């Protein structure tokens, strides 16, 4: 594999790289809150719904990024309403998103079978070739807005994701922030689909976060570190994809998974070495406190 930077003189490569780098920065900025809220799979759910959005784009001959944005944001609103106002549990609502999204997408692309369905593949796994400059600027604008919003609201978002009950008693606008988190996730999914593809979008939300948190001790460092890691992983993935002529979603995610495995192995090694000098010893002279489980 040769990393020949001359491929960057092609305009399509510049477009692909810019969108991937923006997405690499903004996806972990949202993903860190989803991981904290233990909602890591929501990105996948919205990615599946986005397939329906893409199909609506084909059917109506509009730019799929706009129909996808509209569909995922609408799905995010419905999700949140279901979660907060009915007895439907979060994972049931999520399951409905998965099934409904894929089924709707397949059904609608079936109807629109004569209208450019051939490039559906490029939405599922990403593509270097398809985006025009107008779309790239939409991706840059959307991605930047998401990243800036998440950076500014970091302490509030982190508070509602860590302990929603406390956040409510503290008087924070929990419902609004929850909704905002879902909407920014929907925007992220929509702007990421060209770079990583709908089926792999969730990986870019989650992998950079879980990779850097092997080493970080603060939320702030985790968020910034994850954005940096996402930037590097997405950039490297696009370059590798161009060199080998494979969909960029696959290379980005494989590089991310490899980074995670390497970091996890390193972290466990470091922890083993450190175990001999732990920083927080349990308070001294304390009784052994065990509560034995009764009757199993």
């Amino acid at each position, binding site marked *: 594999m040769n990393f020949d930077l001359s491929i960057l003189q092609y305009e399509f490569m510049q477009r692909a790289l810019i969108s991937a780098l923006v997405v690499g920065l903004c996806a972990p900025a949202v993903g860190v809150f989803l991981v904290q809220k233990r909602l890591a799979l929501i990105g996948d759910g919205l990615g599946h719904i986005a397939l329906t959005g893409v199909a609506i784009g084909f059917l109506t001959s509009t730019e799929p990024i706009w129909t996808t944005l509209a569909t995922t944001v609408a799905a995010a609103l419905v999700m949140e309403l279901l979660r907060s106002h009915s007895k439907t549990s979060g994972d049931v609502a999520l399951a409905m998103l998965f099934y409904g999204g894929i089924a709707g997408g397949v059904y609608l692309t079936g109807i629109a079978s004569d209208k450019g369905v051939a490039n559906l593949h490029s939405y599922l796994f990403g593509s270097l070739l398809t985006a025009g400059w107008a779309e790239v600027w939409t991706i840059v604008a959307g991605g930047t807005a998401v990243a800036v919003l998440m950076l500014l609201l970091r302490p509030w978002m*982190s*508070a509602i994701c860590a302990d929603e009950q406390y956040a*409510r008693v503290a*008087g924070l606008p929990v419902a609004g922030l929850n909704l905002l988190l879902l909407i920014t996730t929907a925007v992220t999914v929509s702007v990421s689909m060209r770079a990583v593809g709908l089926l792999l979008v969730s990986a870019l939300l989650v992998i950079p976060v879980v990779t850097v948190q092997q080493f970080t001790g603060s939320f702030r460092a985790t968020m910034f570190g994850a954005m940096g890691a996402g930037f590097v992983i997405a950039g490297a993935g696009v370059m590798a994809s161009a060199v080998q002529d494979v969909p960029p979603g696959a290379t980005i995610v494989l590089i991310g998974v490899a980074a995670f495995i390497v970091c996890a192995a390193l972290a466990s090694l470091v922890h083993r070495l450190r175990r001999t000098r732990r920083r927080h010893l349990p*308070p001294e002279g*304390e009784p052994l406190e065990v509560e034995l489980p009764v009757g199993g």
Partner: protein
Amino acid sequence: MPVIATRGATVSYGGRAVVRGVDLAVEAGESVALMGANGSGKSTLVKAIVGLVPAAGGDIELFGTAQRRFRDWKRVGYVPQRTGAASGVPATAAEVVGQGRLAHRFLGMPARRGDREAVRRSLEEVGLAEHARCAVDTLSGGQQQRVLIARALATDPDVLIMDEPTVGVDAETQTALAEVVAARLDAGCAVLLVTHEIGPLTDRLDRAVVLADGRVVHDGEPPRPVGEHADPRHQHMHPHPSPDSVPEPDGTAPRLDFGRSSGTSEADLWGGE
């Protein structure tokens, strides 16, 4: 004007009344322990007071305002029933305590000096000043509990509502808690404490309200520890039947915390003291 007032408060879960017509008043600067066995409804009552569960009937007022219309939540410091301070992503003790200042800040604006000062002071009050930059998941269970108490203090509350802050925590944390409560009472803050045992706090409590089966059965003098429980050196053991031998208190052994299962009786919840 009481800081907390409930009149005939009733809370039901799925049609079953858990709290039935409770009248409770906590005056400014007063300290009240809310006691009772498991399932007596004391935690549910507190959740209704702070608005986490809806009341099916009766009135709940905070600072003289009906709780539904109450918006000045930064006057309330709340310590939820113990869940641990750690979440899915690492966070430092100072970051968790900083959540207590968010109600004082405009959305999206950076922390001001007063906010950082309040965080530092709160961590110092619970004896964790030197752990401010440590990740909370590396702290012991008792230290995490103190982080949550510091978060409630950071908002500079006029009333501190604590839901079982002493269950299963170490002696150091219980002492720290008693000192914190005493210091805040001296500063004029009211305290409502849900607890099984009042331990080191006995002398500072003005009243104890005891619930049984969702009703108030006692409102007055806090109960005094009797017999061997009164001995300050007394170590609580867990007297429930167990196939294994009773564990010996051992300062050097690792602390095991199995959390609290819902089916345990009151006796199981007497943590070390």
